[in-house]
Structures are given as structure tokens and as C-alpha cells.
């Protein structure tokens, strides 16, 4: 299978009064056609900026894509003209945002917002676009789509609005769907429905998906590959099953330990001690050093290497092999 998306050495920096924040710092990853990639990490780890960088929507100023390549279907998106990238947005790469309550225009009818997409990209006439909008609303499971199409967003519940967002994102049958925490603002039952819907539509259309989340449960159920981000870096990257069974990074281990265990009778919920580092004033060495259980002197001095542990499994740590072995894996020798 060929790579649909190939991100190489992407760096996105923000100029702030405090100094330069390296929100995304030298990130590379690939996404194959039809696969789902999960990106997990704490707030501020650079997940969203990575994806905004892909479709060039980083707010500029203060943000700036400093270097790197985003090869989508063989062409570098970062080199395209504004006109050309606009034709890709929504048409070939679509996005779903975190908060369905605010990502629909409150003053526009639902149908109008859905119609705008296909009129813009597929050259639909009004009537065609309207029919298409109704069909999409039915596809994403909005009951009574015909009569609800004329409603305004405030007449929809959060879950329904997220369905509308998904309908909008998928209405031009994009090759890549970027879902930025699509379920964070929803309650658990609706979350499950929305995820199920994304899964189903992905099966039917063959769309590749990048799923940004900080919910490891969602990652486990939805993705083929996972990237764990911390402080603008990829800390670990592996197949989903491998990452969950044999994590090779202390940070990933900490994250996995922090997942509440419903079978535990009682006891304290584990949390990774400390706070994410101040991104404007990163210390030399490993950015996770201050919070790490495995920390040694070298961690504070030297930036860790990106160690290959297995095919498709990398970890950014001085002691990646040790951690991996401890999890029960056998690191490959380079």
C-alpha cells in the first residue's frame, strides 16, 4: 500500500512574548490509504497544531510552519498556492473539530452549511446540493432529515451537531479525514455513537482517518497506528496493539497506568506527577525528565535518541530498550 500522507520533519513554531514556542518540533510520520492513525497526548502537546499544519490553518501570526514537508498524494501541501490549498481543504482533506457547539455557524441554516461544501467543491447546483445535503444527513443518522434541514444549529443537540459536522466533512468524500477530539465535548453514550459512526463511514468510503484524542480507550478501539506526542515531539510510535501490550516509553507507560480501571475495588487513581514543561523555556535534555520514573543524569543533559524497537515501533528515550524489555518486548538490534 502506498502512503496517502507523508509528513517529514515538520516544525511549527509560535512567536510569543515569552519567546519561541516549538509547538511541533521535527515530526515525521506516514499514513497509509484506508488506515486510521491515532495521535494522543496531553493538552498542549502539539497534536492539534500538527494537524492544522497539514492543511495550513495554523494562525499566522503568531504561528509559522518553519520547515518540513507534508506530502499528500505525491505533492507537498506546504508549497501549494493559497488558491490550491483551498481546493484541497474540505474536498480531499476534511476536518472535524472538538466542540460541535461552536463549530457550526449559528446564523446559518444547517442545510445551507452542508450545501456550501458541495456547491464550492463539486460545483453542485442549489437543488443538487440540497438533495446531497439531505442524503448526507440521513447517512449520518439524523432522523427526519428533510424537515430538520431548515433548522438552525441551536435547535440541535451536541451529538446531532457533531453528526452534522461529520456529514459536512464527508460530503465531498475526502481521502483524509482529520478528527480533532471529535468526542471530547460529548457525553459517553453519544461518544460511542459518534465513534461507531466514524468507523462505519470509514469502512464504507475507505477514507483514511487521523484521530486526535487524549482518550486512550478511543485509540484502542479505533486506530491501526498510534503516535504519542509530548512537548511537540513524537515520544512513541507503534501499531496500536503493540503500543498497548508492550509500550517502549516511560511516558506511554504512565499514560496507560493513568487509565481508570473499572474492576479495581478502590485505591488511588494513578497520575503522572508534575506538569507539562513550559514550552517557551525548554531545558536541554529530555522534556519529560522532570516527571519520569526512569530518569538518570543523562536525561537532563542530552536529548534522547529516537530508538527503533521493532518494525514500526519507535520510542524517544535513552532507555527505550530497557523499558520495552520490561514491558515484555524484544527490541530488534540495529
Amino acid at each position, binding site marked *: 500500500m502506498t502512503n496517502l500522507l507523508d509528513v517529514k520533519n515538520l516544525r511549527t513554531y509560535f512567536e510569543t512574548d515569552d519567546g519561541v514556542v516549538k509547538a511541533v518540533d521535527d515530526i515525521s510520520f506516514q499514513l497509509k490509504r484506508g488506515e486510521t492513525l491515532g495521535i494522543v497526548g496531553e493538552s498542549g502537546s502539539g497534536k492539534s497544531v500538527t494537524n492544522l499544519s497539514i*492543511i495550513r*490553518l495554523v494562525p499566522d*501570526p503568531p504561528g509559522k510552519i518553519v520547515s518540513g514537508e507534508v506530502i499528500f498524494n505525491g505533492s507537498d501541501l506546504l508549497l501549494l498556492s493559497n488558491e490550491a490549498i*483551498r*481546493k*484541497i*481543504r*474540505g*474536498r480531499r482533506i*476534511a*476536518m472535524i*473539530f*472538538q*466542540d460541535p457547539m*461552536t*463549530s*457550526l*455557524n*449559528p*446564523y*446559518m441554516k444547517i442545510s445551507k452549511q452542508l450545501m*456550501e*461544501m458541495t456547491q*464550492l*467543491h463539486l460545483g453542485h447546483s442549489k437543488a443538487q446540493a440540497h438533495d446531497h445535503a439531505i442524503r448526507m444527513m440521513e447517512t449520518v443518522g439524523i432522523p427526519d432529515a428533510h424537515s430538520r434541514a431548515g*433548522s*438552525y*444549529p*441551536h*435547535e440541535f443537540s451536541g451529538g446531532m451537531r457533531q453528526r452534522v*459536522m461529520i456529514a*459536512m*466533512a464527508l460530503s465531498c468524500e475526502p481521502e483524509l479525514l482529520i478528527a480533532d477530539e471529535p468526542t471530547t465535548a460529548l457525553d459517553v453514550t453519544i461518544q460511542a455513537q459518534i465513534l461507531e459512526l466514524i468507523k462505519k463511514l470509514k469502512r464504507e468510503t475507505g477514507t483514511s482517518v487521523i484521530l486526535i484524542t487524549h482518550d486512550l480507550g478511543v485509540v484502542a478501539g479505533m486506530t491501526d497506528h498510534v503516535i504519542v506526542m509530548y512537548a511537540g515531539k513524537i515520544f512513541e510510535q507503534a501499531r496500536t496493539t503493540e503500543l498497548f501490550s508492550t509500550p517502549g516509553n516511560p511516558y506511554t507507560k504512565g499514560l496507560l497506568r493513568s487509565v481508570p480501571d473499572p474492576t479495581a475495588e478502590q485505591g488511588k487513581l494513578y497520575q503522572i506527577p508534575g506538569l507539562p514543561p513550559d514550552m517557551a523555556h525548554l531545558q536541554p535534555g529530555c522534556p519529560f525528565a522532570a516527571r519520569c520514573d526512569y530518569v538518570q543524569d543523562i536525561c537532563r543533559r542530552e536529548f534522547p535518541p529516537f530508538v527503533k524497537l521493532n518494525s514500526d515501533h519507535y520510542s524517544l528515550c535513552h532507555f527505550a530498550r530497557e523499558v520495552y524489555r520490561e514491558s515484555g518486548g524484544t527490541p530488534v538490534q540495529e
Partner: protein
Amino acid sequence: MSTEKNPQHDELIHIGPEMAVAEADVHADEGAFLRGTSLWRDAWRRLLKNKLAVFGLVVVIVVTIASIAGPALIQQTFGFTPDYIPNNDKLTRSFPPFTGPDGKFSWLHPMGTDNAGRDVMARVLQGGQISLFVGILSTVISLLIGVSYGAIAGYAGGRVDNLMMRIVDVFYSLPYIIIVIVLLSLFRSQTPRGQLTLLFIAIGSVSWLTMARIVRGQILSLKNQEFVLAARATGVSGSRIVFRHLVPNTLGPVIVYATLTVPQIMLLEAFLSFLGFGVQAPLSSWGSLAADGVTNIAVFPWQLIFPGVTMALTLFSLNFLGDGLRDALDPQMRTV
């Protein structure tokens, strides 16, 4: 109207549908009625509950209809136009209201006549036509310029915004009444229509400034909302985002401000006409009628009272209506 305050609203500066939803909570008992309620219908319902605003609305409608239809109707019924001067010497003098040439009660001139024997009511109604016309047209002009200017400045941001708003500041700091007077006397036109056009240009060129600021402020707070990012992520172009997505979201405050601009401009027009820079005879406006009337105030008070009262009533009503609209469209901005 509800006086309930929902704390979650405090963080919202713009008028959003959230407000409509909150209103829906307050009026939960009217649930059936609320099905399919749009934002505008909701606002309309709230407006109707405000007695002063309804009063204002009614007066404005009545005055508008009377001004538009009145002069023609009078001509149909009594056979004279607003600028009709009788060629009988006995009639070219000022009669009190409801008084015929013989000094007895008569319906012919309910507001009396002026020094030249012209019917004051016909002139007041014609003046209303021009005053309202100036007020509304200038507001529309200020709306078009102000909204586009403010929206572009707000959305562009950065240096463009800075430059555009500094230009507004410069205009602001000029004493605009003096500018308008200079403009009007410099290009004084020979024909009354030409003078009227000049008046539009003069008033229109100063009245869009506040509108531009209001719209820019709204756009600034709106443009960082997620739906704008979502629209950009679907490949919508910048100009389309500004005029199709953002500007409709500012309509609430814009409508309110526009309603309050109409009386301001009418007042400015009256002021200029009063000073003799505005509307010229034989056309009349409330301002020029008042100016004519004030010279004879001791002897023929009705020449001042009728245009004055009509204007005051209309301005009052427009202000009430504007306040009512603000409350209806933006319940959380109310300072109780």
C-alpha cells in the same frame, strides 16, 4: 420579558443562538410554541412584549405612511400642494389651526397656514418625507460603508486593521459638524435637489465611522470562534467567510445601531436645515420648517409647534424602537 440571568451567558459578547436557547428555558411552558423558532422570531416576540418599543414602532409606521401618502392625499382632497401659495392677497397670511379665511372653524388647515398661506400640515408631512428619506438613506449608506469597512479591518487584522482603524480615528477627531457645514457651504448647490444630494454625501461621509468600529469589534470576537476555522477548513475563501459567515453574525448589534442612527441623522439634518445649510425652500424638512417657524414664534406659534412636535415624537419613537430592539436581540446586554 424575563429578568432571569443565566451565568453562562456572561462570557458571550455576541448574540448567539445560545441566548435563544436560554430564553427557551425560561419560557419552557411555551414549549409547543417554540418548536422551529428561529432567532429572529424569538427576538420579535420579545420586542412585542416591550410596550414602549411597540408604541415607537406604531408611531414610526404611522408617521412614515402619513408622510408618504399625506401630501398626495391632501392634494386629492383639498386641491393644494405643500408649496401652493394662494394668489389671493387675503389668503397669503398665517391662519391658526382649524380656522378658515373667515375666522370660523374649518377642517381645511388642521395645523394652520404659514406666512405665505401654505398649509402647515401638508408641509410637515412633506418635510417628514424628506427627513425620513435623509435619515434612512444616510443610514443605509453608513451601513454599507461601515459594515464592509469594519468587517474587512476586523478580519484582516494586523497591520491592515491598524491602518484602517487609524484612518477612522482621524476622521473621528475632526469636528464633523464643522466639516459638514464647510462642505455644504463650499459646494452650495443652486437647485434644492442638488443641495439635498450634497446633504446626503456630507452626512453619509461622517456617519459610518461608529458603525465601522462596532462591526470591527464584533468581527474580532467572532473570527476566533471555531466555526470560522471550520469554514476555512472546508476551503471557503476569505471574502466569503467575511460576508457570508461573519457579517450575518453581527446583524443584531448592527440593526440596533442602525435604528439608533436614523434619529441621530434626522437630528443632524434638522440642525443643518435649521442653520440654513440643509434642505432649501420650496422643499421642506422638519428642521427648515422649525427654522421658519421660530422667527414668528410669538405671533404664530403653530408654525413651530407642529413640525417641532412631530419631529420630537418621531425621534422619541425611533429611540424607543432602537432600545427595544437592543433588548430583544441581545437580552444579556441589558443594564438593569
